[in-house]
């Protein structure tokens, strides 16, 4: 078990997502920044779908109650293991009683903790990803226990990787959304020329952007949305749906973020700037 002394701002268990229930309105969920988690699970030689802890903005304080190996990735949060600084994308041996804590958020917004074999919390509808009410809780709280299996011997093929960080990247690459062609020239010009600020209304469901573009009166029937869909509301506000985003929506779907752009945006917080580029 991993004992949660302090939960931090918003810490959840996430895997690669909950599939095949979107026709019943269930969001896909799963890790927001797939690229960082892919590297962690590769280092630990885990399955790609192994569950990790997603740690948002302010990190938790955690005590390991079983031996294992761990790796961190994503945001840089001044992590320490038994009060000694540790780095991202490096495998560390964990002994019983080791304490992992986090300090200042240096860069990015979401950090990830992987353990050998992944976390083994209860699967609901084929996934461990937290999403209330599919799972009982929406996040871990103080004194929770998060389960994993003990791992005594593991010789990683690669114990450390240097990564090309995308945490400073401000450009979100997008393709055309289904309603792209019915937007006005002015709206399209605004989308691709303006710099947008991430609003404080940002979470696992959606990121709102502060600056607005020209309003519209387009009326459409509710239709499917996916993570990375950028909706344009009638008042000209842009809303980027993320992993816990609703599965259908009635606003025009202006553009669609690439998988990499979703990871880049997942590492942004309120007040950060971004821009869109059509590819």
């Amino acid at each position, binding site marked *: 078990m991993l004992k949660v002394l302090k939960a931090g701002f918003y810490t959840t268990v996430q895997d690669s997502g909950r599939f095949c229930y979107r026709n*019943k309105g269930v969001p896909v969920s799963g890790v927001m920044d797939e690229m960082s988690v892919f590297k962690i699970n590769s280092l630990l030689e885990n399955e790609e779908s192994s569950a990790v802890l997603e740690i948002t903005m302010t990190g938790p304080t955690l005590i390991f109650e079983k031996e294992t190996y761990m790796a961190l990735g994503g945001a840089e949060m001044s992590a320490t293991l038994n009060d000694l600084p540790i780095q991202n994308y490096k495998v560390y041996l964990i002994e019983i009683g080791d304490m992992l804590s986090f300090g200042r958020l240096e860069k990015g917004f979401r950090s990830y903790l992987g353990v050998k074999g992944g976390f083994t919390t209860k699967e609901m509808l084929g996934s461990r990803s937290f999403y209330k009410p599919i799972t009982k809780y929406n996040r871990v709280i103080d004194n929770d226990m998060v389960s994993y299996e003990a791992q005594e011997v593991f010789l990683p093929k690669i114990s450390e990787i240097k990564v090309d960080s995308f945490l400073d990247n401000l450009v979100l690459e997008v393709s055309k959304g289904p309603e792209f062609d019915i937007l006005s020239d002015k709206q399209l010009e605004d989308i691709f020329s303006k710099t947008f600020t991430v609003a404080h209304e940002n979470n696992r469901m959606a990121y709102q952007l502060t600056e607005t573009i020209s309003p519209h009166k387009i009326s459409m029937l509710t*239709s499917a949305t996916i993570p990375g869909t950028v909706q344009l509301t009638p008042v000209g506000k842009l809303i980027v749906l993320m992993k816990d985003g609703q599965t259908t929506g009635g606003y025009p779907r202006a553009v669609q973020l690439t998988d990499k752009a979703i990871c880049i945006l997942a590492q942004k917080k309120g007040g950060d700037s971004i821009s869109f580029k059509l590819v």
Partner: protein
Amino acid sequence: MNSPKINIKSFGIHSVLIEWPNEVSELILDKILHFERFLNKEVFTNKEWELVPSYNSLLIINRTKKIDFEKFSFNINQWYVQLKETPKPDRYLWRLPVSYDLEFGIDLEMVANQLHKTKEEIIALHTRATYTVFGIGFLPGFMYLGGINKELEIPRKAEPRSKVVKGAVGIAGKQTGIYPQESPGGWNIIGNCAVPIFDASKENPCFVSVGDNIEFYEISKAEHDLNKIEAEVGIYKPEKIIMDA
């Protein structure tokens, strides 16, 4: 009947959207569900694929792989032409009990006043219609129901409530539906349905599918309380009738 024309659009690298004419129509919904059934049975037989129907569209998603749009849209057109050879899917009519007791129907008196009707007339209008599920979204198990009586059309509340209880039955504009879980909401609440529309502990967490029909019937508060207990212990079975395809 000639098949209505489809329009195929790329939507990210993992999904493709098929659109039918932009109208709320049972005929179009029939065609979409027929095609969905064909694709599920004949083409996308593994769990790598997911299909999401809604009103006039069908989204096809691959979990991980990139879709070659040109090739894929050519295939979709071919499959659409072959469609007539497969049987239509089974569709169900679900009869759901609603208590319109004022304890649950917190806006029922206001709705009646605003529409210049009695509470009984509102209940009669709401229970007399047969509704069609045109989509499921917004929340797990939240049904977009079409077919509300024109006389029940009323604007959504100016100030949405921060908390609407699970099972609340609401009306707003041309829509009616049930909140499958506690959530914020702006619809006018006229009753409560204790049948759990969504239950994550079940293999099929939502018994309703897009294309099914829904009817509501009135029950007393006492019956509602009993339904609620049955639902909590998991023995309640909603009443279903197979529809003529």
